[in-house]
């Protein structure tokens, strides 16, 4: 199972990972090898298997749609780590 360099570049872009040329080559080799092994899954007959297979406990648990006050200390520790802030809000680069 071989992946092309172009496909590696495309996946890296989708995953927002910057890779250098050495990395692109290395990952092409390694991913091809892993995917080659994973192709083994084709041998398993799964036409009779339901993919969700939920257990008896797996059903939605809901809670009341109510407001809970946030822990101030938690909030301040979280905000303190943003690299750029303005007025207690996290600043991001232009999106549109």
């Amino acid at each position, binding site marked *: 199972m071989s*992946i092309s360099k172009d*496909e*590696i570049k495309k*996946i*890296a872009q*989708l*995953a*927002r*990972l*910057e*890779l250098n040329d050495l*990395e692109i080559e*290395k*990952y092409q080799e*390694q*991913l091809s*090898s*892993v*995917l080659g*092994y*994973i192709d*083994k*899954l*084709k*041998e*398993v007959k*799964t036409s009779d*298997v*339901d*993919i*969700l*297979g939920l*257990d008896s*406990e797996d059903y939605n*648990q809901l*809670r009341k749609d109510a407001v809970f006050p946030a*822990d101030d*200390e*938690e*909030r301040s*520790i*979280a905000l*303190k*780590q*943003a*690299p750029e802030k303005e007025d207690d809000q*996290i600043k*991001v*680069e*232009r*999106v*549109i």
Partner: protein
Amino acid sequence: MTIKEIHALLQSKKITSLELTDFFLDRIKKLDPKLMSCISVFEVEARQFAKQADIRISQGEKSYLLGIPYLLKDNILVKGLKTTAASKMLENYIAPYDATVVGKLKEVGAVLLGKTNLDEFAHGASTENSAFFTTKNPWDLERVPGGSSGGSATAVSAGLCVFALGSDTGGSIRQPASFCGVSGLKPSYGRVSRYGLMAMTSSTDVIGPLTKSVEDSAIVLQTISGQDKFDLTTSRQEAPDYLKNIDKKIKGLKIGVVKEFLNESLAEDVKKGVLEAISKFKKMGAEVVDISLPTNEYSVPAYYIITPSEVSSNLARLDGIRYGHSLKFNPKGKSVENLNEIYLRNRGEGFGSEAKRRIMLGTYALSSGYFDAYYKKALAVRNKIKQEFKQAFNNVDIILTPTSPHIAFKIGEQANDPLKMYLEDVFLCGPSLAGLPAISIPVGTSKGLPFGLQLISNKFKEDLLLNCSNVFQKETNWHKNFPSV
């Protein structure tokens, strides 16, 4: 010493928790430069926890874990303290809240000593993928401790703490327990809250204890188990009393063994040790039954599609914008390209190669055109594996397998072959995919290095699992061997 023995000393005031804590802090100072098991040691906080514990003991409180020092794998959040996931991405990250298990341990008065090393984001089976340093196996400093909970396994084995917590997604507690000669328990999925555990594979991750004995494991499991409103995948079933029947005789217990597992893929000594353990169980009155798990050989490829897929989703939140590794960067005026640049560079630099490899694998498996062939197929295989285990448990109470086909390998030996590393998990992925509880206990040595045996039980039957492995330890001494560091 066992938790019960230390507890007795604390309760009878023969030692204080502060003395005990100082003992372990000194031991870490002395031995850890060689072992490299800890990323952070919280000396000041540990002493504070210990002093509070001593006050509570004098007030008559009696919980088993009150005043007992422990270590945490560094992917479990502790409020106000560094939690790094052994990644450059979170090198200086301070957790804003406590994981639920940490809250529970604080409530009973256990003493947190620090955070242990792991493979970055728990991706790995050797702790070599840590962005900071590789932890050494205390039995042979040139060998790996296993992974991804390598730091915790080394620390418990070398006596740097009384117990440690790790996380297990595809073997990450059990395999290092085997390589380091300690007992490592992966509870059922949903037995222990994942709130505050940095998510890797959300559908298989579990937190569990690494200890010197099965009895200690039961005590820790009792404390950390339970339903949690912050983790809706936790079971609504209450945890039973794990110590109640832990010494019960196992006469008539049905233990299933898969003959195909005991083949030439096992190292000679490991095969011998496992067969001897099987005879031991027979002598103790258990009935050993041949069972078949034909789809288990596909558990590794299924796992290595499902895991990277979930990883690629879970790590998408790490972009350096709200927290984490972020580069000082020169924006191109008001260009929209700036945001994309930030993502590419922060993530490209912040993640190590295994993390990137898994993100890429997952992104590929989930992308349009490949989703059906890979991800959906893996889910179907997973289900088949789950059904096979369910059927097996109609005929047996416990399933027995080796934990790892071999003893700890040398540092660097497998570093260039990611596929070989993935195959470490051949006996371990199945129970993870099926959400079943499994434990690794020491069962022999080879060339001076320990190896373990895996026991698996049906979902939420940890009491039976602990009972079976405990009585084995009562009749053998493998778990009493410790390395001289």
